[in-house]
Structure formats: C-alpha cells, structure tokens
C-alpha cells in the first residue's frame, strides 16, 4: 500500500530524514515512534506530498508520488499533528469542501457525514464556525474529513492528542475496522501503550534514521515497547 524507499530530506544543513525505507501492507496498522524532532512528522509530510524530498521514492498502491501526486493523494487521507483547518468555514462547509474535492456524490457524502459525525458526537456543532471549536473538536472534524472519502491509506500525526477518552477509544475501533476492511494506517505517536496494543507493526526512528522496524513481536520481543524504545534511545 505504501512503499517508502531510501527517503532523505534535509532542512539546510540538518538531515531530518536519512535513507529511510518502510513498507506498509494492506490491513496493517503501522506505528511510527521516536523522540521529538526525530523525523516522524517530516516523513509523514513527505509521504503525503506536502514536503518535497531530496532523495528516494514514495509509492502509493504502486503509483509514484513524485510522478502522479494527484492520483496518489486520491488514495490517501492525512491528518497533521495540529489540525489547522479553515477557521473561516463552518464544520459542515469544510466537510462539503472535502467532499467536493474528492468528488463524493451528495447522497453518499451526507450519509457518511451523518455516520461519522454521529460517532464523534459532533453533529450538533457542524453549523458552528471552526474558529469556535476546541482543539479536540477540530481533531474530530479532521478525522471525519479523513474518513469521508473512505481512503485506502490513512496517515496521521499524533492522532490521539486532544481527544477525550471516548473519542480515543472510538478512533482505535475505527482504525481497526478500516484495516480489517483492507485499508492501511500509518501513524506517529508518543503514547507507547497505545502503539503496543493497537499496532501490527512498528518502526522506531532516531535522528532521521530507522533504528528498528517489524512486527510488534519482532521489535519488542519479551520486553515492553517502552523498555525497547528507551534502550534504543540510550544507545
């Protein structure tokens, strides 16, 4: 579903991502962990076509992101760590805007908005301007917009930040359902307990380099993910 090969990205002198390769298969929830500034967000932003990378390639369902970015972007959804949405729109206008961009027929769109806004209990607030939303509400709206076009691949940067416990639980369920239906999810997190329980595979990044990746069992063995992560950080 998502093949990242030898990806490198620098900001001036600083190498943010260094020769990173990752393969995410359909049905997988892939966790991406690392300390602050390790290169997680940069990798995600490169993988969705926001940042142009210096070397390597990103393939989404076999299509090169560099060669056909629009086709690739149709297959995916992205949620950044801080969902700065269009504050000047209402929630429903934003969702309809996303629906129009992804050419979702009006009827289907309404049905999905009803479903996902209902799940996150945001229906009543959809007429409110986004500027009046709390961080958590913006995060919920970003999640609804990501699921709205039922993408095959979802990339999320710290998706649980700002969500209340119920919404976090619902998101985990939705992530599992999405992958059980053949989709794939690649997300970064600092909450290692969540990664340990939720992810099929995990990758650990340090100073832009991949230091460990594989199935959860392969990465952590008999230890906890936290122990492995801290051990790798100290090396």
């Amino acid at each position: 579903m998502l093949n990242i090969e030898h990806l490198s990205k620098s900001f001036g002198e600083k190498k943010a991502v260094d020769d990173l390769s990752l393969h995410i298969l359909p049905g997988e929830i892939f966790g991406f962990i690392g300390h602050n500034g390790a290169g997680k967000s940069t990798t995600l932003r490169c993988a969705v076509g926001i940042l142009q990378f210096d070397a390597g390639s990103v393939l989404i369902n076999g299509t090169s992101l560099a060669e056909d970015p629009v086709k690739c972007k149709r297959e995916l959804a992205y949620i950044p760590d801080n969902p700065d949405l269009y504050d000047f729109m209402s929630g429903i206008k934003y969702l309809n805007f996303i629906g129009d961009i992804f050419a979702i027929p009006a009827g289907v769109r309404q049905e999905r908005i009803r479903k996902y806004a209902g799940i996150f209990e945001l229906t009543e607030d959809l007429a409110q301007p986004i500027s009046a939303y709390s961080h958590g509400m913006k995060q919920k709206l970003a999640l609804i917009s990501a699921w709205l076009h039922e993408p095959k691949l979802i990339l999320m940067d710290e998706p649980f930040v700002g969500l209340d416990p119920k919404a976090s639980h619902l998101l985990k369920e939705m992530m599992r359902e999405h992958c059980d239906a053949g989709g794939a999810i690649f997300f970064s997190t600092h909450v290692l307990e969540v990664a340990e329980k939720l992810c099929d595979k995990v990758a650990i990044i340090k100073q832009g380099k991949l230091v460990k990746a594989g199935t959860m069992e392969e990465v952590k063995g008999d230890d906890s993910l936290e122990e492995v992560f801290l051990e790798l950080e100290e090396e």
Partner: protein
Amino acid sequence: MLKVLLKKQLAEVFKGYFYDAKKNRMRSKGAVIAWFVFFGVIMICILGGMFTALSLSLCGGLTQAGVGWLYFLLMGGIAVILGAFGSVFNTYSGLYLAKDNDQLLSLPIPVRTVITARLVNVYLMGTLYSSMVLLPALIVGWAVAGATAARVICGILLFLIVSFLVLILSCLLGWVVAKISVKLKNKSFITVLAALVFIAAYYLIYFKANFLIRDMLTNAAVYGSRIKGAAHVLYLFGRIGEGDWLSTVLFTVVTAILFLLIWIGITRSFLKLATAGGAAAKKRYTEKAVKAKTPFRALLSKELIRFTSSPNYMLNCGLGVLIIPICGVLLLIKGGEMLSALNDVFAAMPDAAAVLLCTGLCMIASMNNMAAPSVSLEGKSLWIPQSLPVEPGTVLRAKGAMQLLLSGVPLVFASVCGAIVLDASPAARLFCVLLPLAFSLFYAGCCTALGVRMPLLSWTNELVPIKQSGAVVIVLFGDWILCIAMAGLYLLGGHRIGAVPYLLIWTVLFAALGVLLLRWLDTRGAERFQAL
C-alpha cells in the same frame, strides 16, 4: 502589581515597534528608535500640524467676535470625538477581547487591578489622540487671547476633563460594541459597512471643512448666542478655556461623577462580557440537501468564503467591489459631460476620452487585489491544499478566478456605463468594454503570480499579509504606473495611430499577458506553490 500589568499593556500596544512580524524577530535598537521617531513625526507634524492650522484659523476670528468660548467648545468637541472614536475599537478589543483575559483572571490578581490596567491603557490611547487637537488649541488660545493664570490653570484642567470625557465615551461605546457583538450575526459585513460609513462621513466633513469654518467665522455671533441659549451646558464647557472657575469646577465634578458611574458599571459587567466569547446563540446543525461541486468550484467557493469572512480582507483588498459599480452609476449621471469636456481639451487627438476612460477604469480596478495576499493567507492551513488531490495550478487558478469574478463583473458594468455616455465611434466604445475586461484578466493573473512568488506564511495577524506583503504593494503601485503609462504614451505620441488601434494594442497585450500568466500559474507557479 498594577505597574507590572501596565508595563505588559504598553509592551503589547507598541509591540509593532519592537517586533518585526514579517521577519518574525525583534527589531534592532536603531530600528526601534526609527519607528518611534516616525510615529512621533506622524502624530506631531501631521496630526498636530493639521490641528494647529485649524486652531490658528478659528481662534483669532472667534475671540475678536467675543465668542472665545466657542473656539474652546469646538476644539474640545473635536478632541473628544477624535479621542473617543480613535480608541473605541481599542477599548472593545483591549478591555473585553484581550487574549490574555483568561490567563490574568486565573492569576492571583484582583479583577479591579486588571480593569484598572486596561482602563489606564484606554485612557492613554484616548489622551494621545485628543491631545493632538487640544494641545495646539490651548497653546494657540493662550498665544492669541493671552495666558493669564486663570486661563492656564483652567486650560490644563480642560485638558484633563476632555481626557476623562474621552475615556468615559470610549468605555460606553466599547461596552455597546461588546454587547452588540455578542449577539450580532454577519459581523464581517456589518464591520465593513460601519467602516465605509465612517470613511464616507470623514471625507464629507473633510471636503466641507473649509465651508464650515468660513460659515462659523462669518456667523460666529449668531451661532454663539443660539448655543448659549439652547445648550447652556456647551457654553459652560467652552468657558473653561477662557478661565471661568465656576464652569471648571462644575465640569470637574460632573466628569468625576460620570467616571465613577462608568467604573461601577464596568466592574459589574466586566467578568460577564470578558468571558462571553462563546455566548452567542449556538447555531444547531440541521441537515440540508447539498449539491456537489467540481474541485475548481469548491476551491473558488472556499476563496469567496475566506474573502467575505474577514472585514480586514474586504476593506483592504476588495473595496472596488462597491466602488467600481458606484463609478459606473456616476458615469451614467455625470460621465457624458465629463468625457465630452475631455474630448474638447484633447481636440487634436480624436477619441482621447475613450483612452482616458479606459485608463480610469483600469486604475479603479486596482482597488481589487484580493488574489495578491491569498496564498499568504493560507498560513498554517497550507497543508490542506497541498495534501488534497488537486493540481496546485487549480488552487492558484481559483484564487485568480475569485479576483476576476469580483472585479470583472463590476468592471463590465462600469465600462458599459462609460461606453453608453461616451461620444465616440462604435469601435472605440467596444474597446472601452474589452480593454478593462482584458486588464482584469491580466491583473488577476499578476496578483496571483506575485502572491505565490512572494508569500508570507508565518504571520500571526492577518493584516500583515493583507496590508504589508510585498505582493500587495507591488501590484497596487505597479498597476498605477502601468495605467499612467497607458494614458501618457497615448498623449505623447500614441494618438498618431488613432484611439481604436491604440486600444486594440493594449487589449491584445493585456489579454496575451493574462494568458501567459495563467500558463505560468499552471507550471512554474504550481511548482512554487507545492514547494512552499
């Protein structure tokens, strides 16, 4: 505690003098001094100079007519109005909308101290504005009518009374604005409308000022006796400047009582209003049928929503939407006369009025440059268009299309009005419509291209990209230079080929450049946008 809060307040007010929002860093010492000198020059030389001139023109005549009090009434009145209106929005935003209200209220600071600090800030701003009028007025008054001890002491007290009246009025108006804005719908449009009314009133008074002053001086005695009889309080107010102790004591006491009442009112309502951020009636969502749009139309619609959501954006980059049609109507009413006069002046150059009409229309069109700051206004939301499955060129085209739509349609109306009243050949009339249309295509492309070439994405206040970005400044002045060149070249020698061929050349040039710019937006402009 109060001192700390006041220091913070003043640092906030003068933040722009210490911090460069464009470069996102503190200014150097030299730059800070230069900014303060610039501010001082503007306030003292321009505003102060203007009111010194006004004082000089009024004081002598009114004093000689035996109504010196009318002079102080007028200048005091202007000081109160300027001070109150100059700081009313500052009062509203500084008192009730301050971003740190929540933070300060959560700290162990008495609410009264927070209010006092805010009010001192309002007082200082109001006094700054009113002093630009009253200080020169008092000095001129003392110089013309003599500076006795009573006149000087009462004059100083008049200054203090006016500064407190400004504070009282600012607080009252600020409170009204706060009350209204809690319940108001369509805030953006109402703000724009209020600003337009204010601008119109300002220019009306500005253009009539000479007449009003002459009328006042001619009929000083008549107006004086009328005011003295019908509005004795105003007479007493003016008498303070003349050193009348009774009036001074009376107004000092009344002002103190009014201030006390305002203080009680504010301390009682402050908490409720300052924390009423989301108090507006919540609009509940009800499902409505939606009509799917193409990605381009969705992007265009998003740009239009962005434009209409911000009074700053509309006032600074879109006044032409209103002004261009108004010009069209004015052309229908007065245009025939004006254009035939131009034809008479340039009798040696046939159809010169057609060229000048096109020039005028293109110049007015430059009032609409909403595409120029549009890329910058994406700000932190830039990740949305960059991660969505749309060509970056389509995103940029939508920005240009918004400007073309909001300028082109009013411009066609105005140019058709012009063509109707223009006394010229049918071909010249036709080009009076085609040329402005081609120009609006070129101008929209130009604004969008410069917007993506010179983006300003790290802003914290939207006014920075709207008013101060290089793209906006260049398109505004560049357009005027281009239009002057278009008219100048015709008058200098272009008329030899005739107006119609001359207009044809410019129409083709603008259309061709417009198409080239669109092509650039689709290719290199798109690359730049994606790389931002």
